[in-house]
């Protein structure tokens, strides 16, 4: 095969051979450093995975909180070491299950959580002080975090001991995933409210997971994923500082989330470049003093978009290779996709096989014995430097626009990504980019695999519980809490304590979001093609 020319490598030529000349400009101490040393290109821990293996965190959620709770218990029993909640679209959009837009969507893409009553069931029988939980939600992130906190309080778990992550990354929603509620600027206020609240009350909680995953899935190249994600990170730090927070008080709790796609070396170089860029940004641009502010910690998920409906067993192999790239890149936690996810949410068997893939890498391959085993490879170091350079070029463009919020408002990252997505699809159709089983080595008459089917029962059960909650709660207390929330949104008080009170009163997710919608309105994006 010749040099790839698809969108992923739009600007970068891959040479036949890399030599010491390819990395003549790389200075070990300045640009790499030993693992645990600035700029952390080789990893943030001196001991690598010998000290602590990555967390095997499988993203899961479907139907009712009861069904999802059962899947969590299964994943923990099979050796999973952290939980990761997938919410359905009504929850992600801040709508109760009885809203007209929720019709047909309840429990389909994740679990439905409409009030504290659902959160109680979701983690029933699971010790919140002993596990770490990641929750993938953005528009209503602070509301869901408040529900988790109150669920822990009710059982007597020390809130300061809670550990986990709330995604809370609204910028990439505007850029890629499009699950936004309010306009960008008030949305950023909710994010910094979480930073401030957690800095004081939840020292072990990751207040944001700045996500490239969805940016990549929407069509970005590796360099675009790296650039837009880290530039989003810069925007959050700037907003935190502008909100009056000390950078070293909140920056150490910022975490990241990347995609691991199919171009093996490019991916693992991307992770290494991300650490180097972030360390320099935090120390030099923001003058952070704490090494913990300089260290980029990240979660990785293998590329959902690389999964094919055709010959689905091929996906096991793709996922294993992508997972290896993430491990070689030094990820702190990992989700491996299941083979059936181009077709549906995974069956229990497929989800277990995905977890086994990680366990085989961790226990059988020997990859975990050595920290950054590919450090010093001519190709890997040259690629790391090239990706860093490409990302910094994007930073300059976005800085010139006044930052990521203005860049988003004018549709810049959205357009860049749509362009890459179209180029990539064309490359697949011309056969320039090979996808085994899709445009080469295809087969006729494949036997369909069995997939998970979510019926309408989840919707009925969620509607029944919602009605029950509304009947049993103290309506006066709910009204008072919602009024206080609305007033707080207007006058600039931190919204987190107000949300905690509304959650304790069993206000619903939709009601809390409506209070904020009244103040801030809803965001409608320009349809760009």
């Amino acid at each position, binding site marked *: 095969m010749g040099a790839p020319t698809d969108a992923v490598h739009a600007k970068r030529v891959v040479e036949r051979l890399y030599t010491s000349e390819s990395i003549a400009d790389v200075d070990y101490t300045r640009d790499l450093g030993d693992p645990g040393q600035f700029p952390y290109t080789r990893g943030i821990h001196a001991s690598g995975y010998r000290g602590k293996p990555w967390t095997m965190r499988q993203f899961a959620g479907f139907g009712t909180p009861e069904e999802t709770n059962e899947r969590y218990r299964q994943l923990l029993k099979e050796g999973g070491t952290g939980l990761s909640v997938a919410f359905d*679209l*009504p929850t*992600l*959009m801040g*709508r109760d299950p009885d809203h*007209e*837009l*929720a*019709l*047909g*969507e309840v429990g*389909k*893409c994740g679990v439905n959580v409409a009030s504290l009553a659902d959160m109680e069931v979701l983690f029933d029988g699971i010790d919140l002080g002993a596990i770490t939980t990641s929750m993938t939600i953005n528009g209503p992130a602070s509301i869901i975090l408040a529900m988790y906190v109150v669920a822990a309080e009710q059982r007597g778990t020390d809130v300061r001991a809670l550990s986990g992550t709330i995604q809370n990354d609204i910028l990439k*929603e505007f850029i890629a*995933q*499009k*699950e936004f509620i309010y306009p960008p600027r008030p949305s950023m206020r909710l994010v910094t409210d979480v930073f401030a609240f957690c800095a004081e009350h939840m020292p072990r909680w990751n207040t944001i997971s700045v996500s490239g995953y969805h940016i990549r*899935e*929407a*069509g970005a190249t590796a360099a675009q994923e790296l650039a837009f994600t880290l530039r989003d990170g810069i925007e959050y730090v700037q907003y935190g500082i502008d909100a009056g927070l000390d950078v070293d008080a909140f920056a150490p709790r910022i975490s990241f989330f990347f995609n691991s796609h199919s171009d093996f070396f490019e991916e693992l170089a991307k992770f290494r470049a991300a650490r180097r860029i972030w360390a320099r940004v935090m120390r030099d641009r923001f003058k952070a003093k704490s090494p913990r502010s300089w260290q980029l910690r990240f979660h990785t998920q293998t590329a959902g*978009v690389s999964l*094919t*409906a*055709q010959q689905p067993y091929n996906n096991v192999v793709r996922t294993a290779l992508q997972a290896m790239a993430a491990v070689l890149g030094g990820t702190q936690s990992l989700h491996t996709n299941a083979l059936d996810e*181009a*077709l*549906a949410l995974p069956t229990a068997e497929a989800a277990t096989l995905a977890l086994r893939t990680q366990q085989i890498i961790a226990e059988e391959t020997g990859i975990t014995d050595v920290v950054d085993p590919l450090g010093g490879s001519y190709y890997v170091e040259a690629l790391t430097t090239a990706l860093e350079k490409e990302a910094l070029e994007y930073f300059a463009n976005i800085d010139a626009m006044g930052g990521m919020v203005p860049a988003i408002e004018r549709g810049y990252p959205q357009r860049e990504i*749509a362009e890459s*997505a*179209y180029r990539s*699809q*064309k490359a*697949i*159709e011309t056969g320039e980019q090979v996808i085994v089983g*899709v445009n080469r080595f295809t087969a006729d008459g494949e036997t*369909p695999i069995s*997939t998970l*089917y*979510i019926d309408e029962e989840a919707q009925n059960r969620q509607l029944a519980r919602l009605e029950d909650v509304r009947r049993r709660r103290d309506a006066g207390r709910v009204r008072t809490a919602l009024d206080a929330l609305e007033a707080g949104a207007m006058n600039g008080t931190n919204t987190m304590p107000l949300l905690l009170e509304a959650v304790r009163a069993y206000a619903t997710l939709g009601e809390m979001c409506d209070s904020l919608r009244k103040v801030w309105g809803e965001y*409608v*994006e*320009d*349809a*760009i*093609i």
Partner: protein
Amino acid sequence: MHQRIRVVIAKPGLDGHDRGAKVIARALRDAGMEVIYTGLRQTPEQIVSAALQEDADVIGLSILSGAHMHICPRVVELLKEKGLSGVLVVVGGIIPDSDVPKLNAIGIEGIFQPGTPMQTIVEFINRHARARVAADS
């Protein structure tokens, strides 16, 4: 009165994954069609009303959330109510095999599951919508 096939590409439901919708919109435009993209979170009512206003020959629905069995029948029903039964409805996204016959039964033949080449969709629309355009002009 128009010569070129006019297509409304719509994203109904709450799902914001618009990569497919945008890629298809561009592919149809590059194939010489006139494409109107509605943007996100359109109700069936809004979609049909856009089709009416735009004098569309085709409505392309992109649905990845699993809500297709709620949305597609509603769009077909509203088209009938408005006397727009001649509008070709096609749907792309995560549509399980088991739902394909159910969608066929309400008159939707163009169902494009994951991995469908853009060219297949262009050809399908060209084949099925040309008659309408010819009759119109």
